[in-house]
């Protein structure tokens, strides 16, 4: 059959081209031998078409066209390969110091980057990450947390109210109450989320973010709280190697309560503008769950103890990234996000 000649030619071409390897001159010799204008094999095979019987021409012609296309493509590829990888003349070195062509890049907001880091630390310690509504009722935001109406602590948490008695939660603590109402101890949760207070100045934003933590079980001690917070802060501030200090504080829903400071990461405790000269930066509030909270949510305070803590997420973010003004976080400026990612 006449097409068998084409198959032979194809096999021979593959063999010769493989032998030529990356040598540009050898590839050129193969080109001349097969596709050369005057003496190339393809020319011969094309000429042979005319000598075939009419009924074979159609099939031969189609197969020949395929072969031509294949040889053309393979030669192009081989020439390109020889040029870039080859050792002969005609190579063109790349300026490796030119900038690369990067794929478009997205970026997470600093508050959410820090949130994910904190979540990951507590997930590794076996905590669940919980969620709850941003529009709350008075019971979960205040009363269940031992803040009855007219309690002076309500002054510290100036509240946005909505029609019908609901309010914007002033902290993530109401989710504590919700989880304790619906679940038996042991409870081990953190609750990240957005919170609102009617306050706006250099250090306060009417909208910010917190992470609440709660652990309830039999035999939980103040020493457990201390160790947990130290483990968390050491992990989060890792490279800064911070000192951690707990000092007594006051929250209606914990007894005793503690304010937790880290040694100033800017001056290493010697005193600077960022720490108001004290050498310490307040990073979170904590304490042992007040027995009244347990009573309000139906957990036996004789049997169980627990601790809770509240972390100012935005504050940690501005500390970790060195952002001077909290409110910059919520201006919707993507330059901030891209810069820090």
């Amino acid at each position: 059959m006449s097409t068998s000649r084409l198959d032979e030619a194809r096999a021979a071409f593959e063999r010769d081209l493989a032998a030529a390897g990356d040598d540009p001159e050898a590839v050129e010799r193969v080109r001349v031998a097969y596709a050369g204008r005057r003496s190339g094999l393809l020319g011969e095979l094309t000429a042979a078409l005319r000598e075939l019987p009419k009924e074979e021409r159609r099939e031969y012609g189609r197969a020949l066209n395929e072969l031509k296309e294949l040889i053309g493509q393979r030669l192009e590829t081989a020439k390109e390969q020889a040029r870039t990888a080859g050792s002969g003349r005609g190579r063109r070195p790349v300026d490796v110091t030119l900038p690369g062509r990067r794929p478009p890049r997205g970026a997470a907001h600093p508050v959410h980057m820090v949130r994910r880091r904190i979540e990951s630390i507590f997930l590794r310690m076996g905590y669940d990450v919980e969620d709850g509504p941003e529009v709350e009722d008075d019971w979960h935001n205040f009363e269940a947390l031992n803040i009855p109406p007219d309690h002076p602590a309500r002054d510290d948490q100036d509240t946005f109210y909505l029609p019908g008695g609901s309010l914007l939660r002033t902290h993530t603590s109401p989710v504590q109450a919700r989880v304790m109402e619906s679940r038996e101890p042991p409870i081990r949760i953190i609750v990240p989320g957005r919170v609102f207070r009617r306050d706006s100045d250099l250090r306060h934003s009417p909208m910010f973010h917190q992470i609440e933590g709660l652990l309830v079980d039999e035999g939980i001690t103040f020493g457990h709280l201390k160790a947990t917070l130290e483990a968390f802060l050491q992990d989060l501030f890792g490279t800064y190697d911070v000192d951690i200090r707990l000092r007594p504080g006051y929250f209606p829903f914990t007894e005793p309560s503690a304010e937790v400071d880290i040694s100033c990461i800017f001056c290493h405790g010697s005193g600077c503008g960022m720490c108001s000269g004290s050498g310490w930066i307040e990073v979170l509030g904590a304490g042992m769950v007040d027995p009244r909270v347990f009573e309000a949510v139906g957990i036996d305070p004789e049997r169980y103890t627990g601790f809770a803590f509240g972390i100012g997420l935005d504050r940690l973010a501005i500390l970790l990234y060195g952002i001077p003004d909290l409110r910059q976080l919520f201006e919707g400026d993507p330059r901030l996000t891209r810069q820090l990612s």
Partner: protein
Amino acid sequence: MKFDLAWLTEHLTTEPDADVLAQRLTASGFLVELRENVAGGAVWDVEITTNRPDAMNHRGLAREAAVAVTSGLRPLAVALAESDEAADDVAAVEIADPELCPRYVARIVRGVRLGPSPEALQRRLERCGVRPINAIVDATNYVLLELGQPLHAFDLARLEGRRIVVRRAHEEERLTTLDGVSRRLQASDLVIADGERAVALAGIMGGADSEIGEGTTDVLIESAHFDALTVRRTARRLGMHTEASHRFERGSDPEIAAVASDAAAEMIARLAGGRVCRGRIDVYPRPWQARRLVLDVGALSAFAGLDIDPSRAAAILDGLGFGPAVDGPRIAVTVPSHRVDVERVADLYEEVLRHVGYGTVPARLPVLRTEPGRRHPNWELVDRGRQAAIAAGLAEVVTWSFVDPDDDALVDGLPGCPGSPLALANPLAQTQAIMRRSLLPGLLAAARASLNRGERRLAVFEEGRVFASEDGQPREAERIGVVLSGTTEDGRVVDFADLKGRVEAILDGTCFPVVEWRRGGSPWLDEDQGATLEIEGAPIGCAGLLAAELAARWDLRQPLYVAELDLGAAMATPPMPQYRPLPRFPAVTADMTVEHPVGLEYRELIGAVEELAGELVESMELENRYSGDELEGRVVRTTLRLVYRHPERSLTQDEVNAAQDRLREALARRLGVGFA
């Protein structure tokens, strides 16, 4: 609160080192925030938490300091010389409502001459942030700062009938307070009245009528105890906050009233002359009842995770005035009258622990059941959305949850608008008065700011909640909003397909069910370049070119492509992808250029192709779309690239050609299209 250091240490039996004192006070719960020198003396700014009104004065903080630095507290001694005239004969006190005023002590000083107080005393007041006024007022302020008892000095001559009546105000009764404001009172307010009218707002502020003035010769000093809640409610309602109300609201010490009245009378007589009348007028219808508690130090040690010696605990409680009686591991105490915050044993734990020092408690991690932590499905959902948007090259921003009512009003027509607006009852500003029902207004304002800064390229997203009222109930929903404008990384001007590609990436990454894109349906978007996104006919968002009216409203001078998606429509848990056998035989690709009217949507075309193509077509994609001038805008050419593959053998070109021919015929019959 500001404390004069010398004044504070006057109350201690030893003079502590200032650095040690500051450190120990901080460690026991009184953060020394600032130490500075003012008006010739050291002033400390100490944070006193709201539960510790007893420490909002020098003697109270000195009591804590004495325990913190193991010093002692000097006894309180007032050397008072009294005249023969009995106070009872000069004036009278009546308490009409003993629930709201459990005790009222009055002292009378006669024959005073009003003048300034001595320099040293003035400076001391100034260091504590109190402006000196005259010797009498300064004396009352001094005693307040020293002992924590709010006092008031009345001009006795201006009290009708020389009587004090503590009673509820009459409805609509008026009183002009010292600040010159005429106050309208109600029956829930407690007033100090004379024989005729109200002369002071109990525990908050005195009245202008009975104020000490140039002509004052006789003074009645009030040293009383008022119900905290009553003071707080009245002060809040009238928008008042004074040194007195601050303390009464938090709970004052009923037992200090007598000593404080003595101290004030002694000072006034010393500084302004005059004679102190014999005896106090002390009306005390509801005497203070001491609370007794028993502390189990063993239980405290277990709670703390630290072995605490009962004798150490007793020493602390003794220093704080709890009169402990030790019986083995148990300590019986009497809560002193100044400690209104201590009600339960749990409160005693704190007293001991904070003076033992939080720093001494060994840190031990709790031993917990090892069970992997789980994230709430909503966090999984919103972070899937975030990750997908970030992977699509978008930068995350956060904007305010509250918006301008005018902006919110435009949101009504958006597909999937969640309900009627939820307005704040007490917004900080009118521009932040409504909870957002869409992320777009906030994103557009942010986009305007970016463009005004001269940025040419915008590719941002926000994930966050929107809020609405539905049947009177507040509702929250998670959304993702996208804004795209300017040029792409490779310098092309962004168009609808750039937006759609990113939105599709978010839909896929967040695991939405199949989403249909339908042109139109959103008044926010350009008629020709806007789409409503639907799942089974229900709108879940929109995407497209921002309509010109809205662009003008936000003053946006370049085209903006925007999208908003309801994340609640995504699948709660993404399905686990399942393996399908990988093809073993090569595929053959073949292009097909369809010429069809503009009105034929790609979805319809591709739907017909999928249906008619037969089993050998493995996949297809859009290769090219041409609607150039020569086609006069009425027809377009859509080139599809089809991938043919047989699962069990290689396909020949002939088979593929034949399949393409069949497909062309079928498409022509079905859709009336031609081929180029």
